């Protein structure tokens, strides 16, 4: 069955990455999943982030969801929290922007300044 093979492949990748990241803290990506976020396309945004992370075989990132933070007009909203760095909040994150944020911010450590709506 295709799924079993797929799981086996992911298991091997996960094992390799677990060895690499021992002692390393995880980056967190948080996507707003309130009614406003979902209506604005947060599900596709979150899915694109997971897919881009998977394609690049990045395992030391955890993607979670949160509710409405009161900035509904900026949804979909994505927070990137790297260990030891300030939280960066991106607004109006389409699935295309989401993939670019993974490439630029997560992989290369370059914040995509023009899409940032808050940094703390």
């Amino acid at each position: 069955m295709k799924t079993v093979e797929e799981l086996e492949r992911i298991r091997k990748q996960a094992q390799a990455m677990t060895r690499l990241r021992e002692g390393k803290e995880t980056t967190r990506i948080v996507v707003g999943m309130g009614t406003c976020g979902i209506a604005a396309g947060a599900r596709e945004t979150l899915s694109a982030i997971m897919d881009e992370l998977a394609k690049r075989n990045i395992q030391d990132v955890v993607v979670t969801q949160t509710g409405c933070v009161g900035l509904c007009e900026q949804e979909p909203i994505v927070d990137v929290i790297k260990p030891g760095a300030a939280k960066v909040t991106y607004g109006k994150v389409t699935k295309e922007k989401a993939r670019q944020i993974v490439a630029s911010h997560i992989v290369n450590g370059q914040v995509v300044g023009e899409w940032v709506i808050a940094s703390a």
Partner: protein
Amino acid sequence: MRELSLHVLDIVQNSIAAGARTVDVTVSEDEASDLLTIEVVDDGAGIPPDILESVLDPFYTSRTTRKVGLGLPLFREAARTAGGDLIIESWPGRGTKVRATFRMSHIDRAPLGDMAETVAVLVVCNPDVRFRYRHTRGARAFFFDSEEFKQALGDIPPTAPALAGVVKNLIREGLDPVQRA
């Protein structure tokens, strides 16, 4: 919301916020009676009777950060627009059941949309919650249980981003023969 599966994602967020450990999502398509039924049942905190009357009011929310709560009212609107309705039942301390019905053939019924993506996102983002998804169409049925899936994972962390794609494919492949006319 463009798709009913987005409403499902939204309504399940209420279950998660209510501390549910298990959420059952059931979609049944019954062509004989021209009825589409979507049910979300959780074992969360439940809603006290005096508040239950207000949850379908768009200007009621349990949140203090803003004054509107649109999830349930929008879902009910989608159901009523398509000749159906939404009912919510709750047992404080035991859980809540939301049931929406739609005339399948109604011209204003929103498409069901991508249930696979909705379930995949929920499973990978909420590793501590068990999701069961049952989909029937006439006599055909598909069933997914996130607990069974996690048992197959072995030492793969349940939050591994690659799993979202795996769950999505698993559900798409399972739903295909059920939904095929």
